[in-house]
């Protein structure tokens, strides 16, 4: 059922400020401009249609990002991406083990290289890439991320730690490769 005029106004006010963020995430997920546009268009259509089921006072951003992500995961590109990603980690606390192949200096060196960051993000497995984007780019709280990805808070923390460690390893590898 499509929302009434008042609801449609409210939807527009809530949804349009998130347009650029949704598009950026869609592009990172699909890695293709045209597919990203299709994904965003479908997300807005589904969100508008289902807006009556949105509970006022709850987190709209997490709600619409969840729609985008679920729409992606059921698309052909999303299904392929999920197939190529190893089964997700168990929900257990992250135990810290120092990464000996990298150093803060190497990370700082790589920081200057915008391309290195982009390339490393592109290489990350989908669950790692999306959680880093939600946390570091969208600046979502752990609770918002848990709502968006529909996972427990503990899993958010452990997955984020693993994702960041993979990111650092990819960057450290790139820096070492460049200076060999």
């Amino acid at each position, binding site marked *: 059922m499509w929302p009434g005029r008042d609801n449609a106004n409210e939807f527009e006010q809530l949804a*349009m400020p998130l347009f650029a963020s949704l598009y950026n995430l869609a592009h*990172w997920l699909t890695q293709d401009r045209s597919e990203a546009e299709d994904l*965003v268009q479908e997300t*807005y259509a589904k969100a508008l249609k289902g807006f009556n089921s949105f509970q006022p006072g709850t987190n709209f951003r997490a709600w619409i990002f969840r729609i985008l992500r679920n729409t992606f995961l059921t698309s052909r590109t999303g299904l392929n991406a999920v197939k190529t990603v190893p089964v997700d980690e168990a929900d257990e606390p992250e135990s810290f083990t120092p990464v000996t192949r990298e150093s*803060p200096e190497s990370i*700082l060196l790589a920081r200057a290289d915008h391309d290195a960051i*982009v390339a490393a993000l592109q290489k990350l497995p989908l669950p790692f890439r999306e959680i880093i984007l939600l946390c570091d780019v969208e600046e979502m709280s752990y609770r918002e991320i848990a709502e968006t990805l529909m996972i427990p808070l503990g899993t958010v923390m452990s997955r984020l730690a693993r994702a960041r460690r993979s*990111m650092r390893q990819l960057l450290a590898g790139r820096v070492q490769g460049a200076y060999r």
Partner: protein
Amino acid sequence: MTCDTWQPKIDAYLDNELPEADVRDVASHLRSCASCSSEALARSELKRSIHLAAKSYVPDPEFRKRIQNTVSPKVAGRSWNWAWTAGTAFAMILLVIAGSLLWTRQIQQQQIIGELTDLHVATLASANRVEVVSSDRHTVKPWFQGKVPFTFNVPELQGSQFELIGGKVTYLDQNPGAELLFGVRKHLLSVFIFKDSPELDRALGSNGQMRKLSFNLASWSDNGLRYLVVTDAARSDVNDLHARFAEAAR
């Protein structure tokens, strides 16, 4: 507690997700432990770099318009038979539109120049004012390749009173752009370059000069790009630099 106990808390500390009591403990440990402090700095720098680098994809303005049309509520198709009602409504709408256009343009212009002035001041206050440090335009221009979704020409400054100091990537309303820093005598000038958009054009016009907090600002549009200068240098310096950019863009 050993450092192994603190390390897992560093991410949550940097993400502002630690309880207040833990924040104090972690901050106190970081002040006294060089190893954890260095680790926290690296993680914080990486977080910041990802934040900047991963905002890479900017939607096409046409696509935004398409989505906007999809979500905007449709006007109900009720027909009115009274011509005077329609006429009055039409006249009122025209008045409101004319007034609000002027008002909106001024608000938007103030927002944009306020944001750019802040960016300029932040650059001046920063210990690392630019990311590419060079007075050679053939070094600075290529550095932006792949970092901003357009290219531009940097003017030849030999024999002029200007010197190129360097540049960095910046953002205006989530759109990436270039910020070039120039020196003239003891003054600094930031030249911001973004892809031009109907919003910028509407707010700033094709060519204009403004003042904000005693800073001199100039804005012009050339070849699909929007140039904006912010400085405390004289208006004549701004005009001179504008002319050099216009010449370089030909």
